[in-house]
């Protein structure tokens, strides 16, 4: 029997995946373990491998389509099986079983009959909605479900509200556009859509306040210059400054528990575990590997974990679960010549630490004007939970640790 290839569920929170690339087309032969497609989730790109050898009988969704997990996206005909009528093919046993059944879905049901569940039809009727106006639903085969009708109703309400004041401005002159001005449309799907939704949700949820503190990076840079070649020789890893920041942050979180918190059910939850996410560039994208229990790890162990995750990310081997569960996030925009910025909190965390670009500047150091390497710590915190002084104290602790970096190695 031909084998159905389904959209994989990779990680607990994955509900759909974007087919970002097909490597095979119908008629191509595949080996077991060969990559069929790239699947983009809200976090990463996965390689979907063939579980059997055979010939691609059918690709059911084009590149760029978003498909729910477990839905069939391709069919592989096994060696010796016909590729053409693969869908009609059934085993002898199932033919015997099915021969007694009358077709369940006669094809000649009037085509203008909108497919909808009974509850969807009832709600539509109660609200005088034409189901045809909803078009395609989210159920199997485009069936309109209760949820679709409720969403449509919601949209109608929003439109009604938005339309109300426009009457007053109707007379305002609007320059008619005669020709289509050049525009390009990029579908807001997959990762783009998730980022957009998450950003919106964070701003709808938290009260963002950002404040900054200048720190002296000179000693940390000098220390890493000394350590890096040793560790590379001895352990095969190249520690970046990020590893020290993860360590310093974990230590500071322990000292300031309010920063490592969330609001759940009208309660502030102080988390006694310290999972620090750090945004890292991978290829053209950005991922946020989560270093779990960073407080219990040394700088070297943190560096090892970051390089391991980056390596896996480069090979598309990352599981979404490796990017989840952070209690705090660091965003280092050093390479992009940024002095100060206002990072957006990753929900449901309560703060995020931005690190600006390190530049050499004249500063007062030990009572003298000296050229030192300085950067800004930009802490955005949720003002519902964290007060200004609490945020400042947290930044001060990190500043002290970074400016006396030997403390991070003990």
């Amino acid at each position, binding site marked *: 029997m031909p084998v159905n290839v389904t959209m994989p569920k990779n990680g*607990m929170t994955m509900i759909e995946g974007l087919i970002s690339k097909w490597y095979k087309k119908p008629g191509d032969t595949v080996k077991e373990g060969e990559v069929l497609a790239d699947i983009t989730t809200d976090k990463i790109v996965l390689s979907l491998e063939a579980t059997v050898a055979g010939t691609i009988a059918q690709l059911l969704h084009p590149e760029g389509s978003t498909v729910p997990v477990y*839905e069939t996206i391709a069919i592989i005909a096994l060696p010796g099986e016909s590729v053409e009528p693969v869908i009609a093919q059934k085993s002898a046993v199932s033919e015997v*079983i099915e021969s*007694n059944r009358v077709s369940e879905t006669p094809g000649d049901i009037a085509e203008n009959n909108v497919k909808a569940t*009974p*509850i969807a039809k*009832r709600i539509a009727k109660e609200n005088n909605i034409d189901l045809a106006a909803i078009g395609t639903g989210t*159920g*199997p085969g485009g069936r309109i479900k*209760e949820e679709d009708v409720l969403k449509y109703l919601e949209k109608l309400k929003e439109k009604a509200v938005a339309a109300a004041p426009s009457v007053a401005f109707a007379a305002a002159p609007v320059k008619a556009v005669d020709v289509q001005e050049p525009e390009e449309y990029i579908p807001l799907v997959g990762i783009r859509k998730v980022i957009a939704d998450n950003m919106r949700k964070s701003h709808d949820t938290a009260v963002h306040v950002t404040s900054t503190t200048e720190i002296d990076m000179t000693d940390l840079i000098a220390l890493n210059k000394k350590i890096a070649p040793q560790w590379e020789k001895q352990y095969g890893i190249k520690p970046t400054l990020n590893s020290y920041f993860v360590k310093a942050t974990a230590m500071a979180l322990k000292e300031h528990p309010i920063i490592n918190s969330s609001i759940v059910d009208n309660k502030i939850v102080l988390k006694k575990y310290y999972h620090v996410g750090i945004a890292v560039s991978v290829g053209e994208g950005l991922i946020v590997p989560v270093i779990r229990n960073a407080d219990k790890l040394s700088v070297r162990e943190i560096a090892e974990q970051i390089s391991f995750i980056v390596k896996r990310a480069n090979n598309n081997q990352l599981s979404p679960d490796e990017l989840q569960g952070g209690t705090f996030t660091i965003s280092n925009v050093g390479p992009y010549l940024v002095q100060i910025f206002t990072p957006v909190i990753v929900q449901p965390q309560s703060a995020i630490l931005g690190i600006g670009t390190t530049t050499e500047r004249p500063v007062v150091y030990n009572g003298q004007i000296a050229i030192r390497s300085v950067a800004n710590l930009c802490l955005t915190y949720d003002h519902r939970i964290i007060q200004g002084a609490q945020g400042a104290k947290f930044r001060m602790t990190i500043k002290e640790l970074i400016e006396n970096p030997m403390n991070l190695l003990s």
Partner: protein
Amino acid sequence: MKEITYREALREALAEEMRRDEKVFMMGEDIANYGGSFKVTLGLVEEFGTNRVKDTPLAESVIVGAAVGAAMVGMRPVPEIMFADFMVLVMDHIVNNAAKMTYMSDGELKVPMVLRAAQGAGTGSGAHHCQSVEGWLMNIPGIKIVIPSTPYDAKGLMKAAIRDNNPVVFLEHKMLYATKGMIPEEEYVIELGKADIKREGSDVTVIAYSAMIPKALKAAEILAKEGISVEVIDPRTLKPLDTATLVKSVAKTKRALIVHESCLTGGAGAEIAAILAKEAFDYLDAPITRIGAPDTPVPFSPPLEKYFIPSEQRIIQGIRDLLG
């Protein structure tokens, strides 16, 4: 409370009812000294003697024919058919005598018989010893069908069945005999025709019975970890069927999955689906779905038998499809 097996729960019910009412007696193949093929009646002959725990010849028609006659003259027989597959040998007594006698005599005659039988696949006993037969019996007016899934239900329902004045077919599942559960120390009876919500949930209703209940509960537990809330309902008796409880649940969850081990076509699930389609129509947000065995004999090959019996995985997939 005490922990007890399904088999022991049935034995307790039988013993208690025989002590309570001397008209209650049992007859069947090897039920006395041997204790029955599945040891349900083990030891009962010592307390009640061979007059009330009667071994019979290997002739099902005689067992049930005699039981129907005894019931009509005032006894309360509990005959046993060793394997429910042999039910076909006694269908005439059930359909044309037991089920009709009260109607045809204008209520003069009653047939308070409880016909016990072991059914179900999973023991590797092949096509003639593993069938689930409740579907065959659903279409007989005048009998009650009891099909318990837990020791607690088995005991309480058996006591109610023996006290009932109508013919009752009591279907036990072979794979449940050794399962354990808690029951009260004190006496209790469970009214026939009352479904039991085995697990409360809000996203989908799974209606199952007999050996499918443990599987449905396991599936519900697994899906709970993904945030899918599954309600599991056991009708416990198929006739009479507690439609009110089923409809109420489906009106809440908007989705129904019916699971039984017997073959899909014309099974109890079809009846339940038809009732839900009418009574819960305006609440449904997905097609009522059934899971059952394929329309084939129970295979003898162990891998095929395993495939034949609806699994947790099939139930999980069925639930996912309903939510899709």
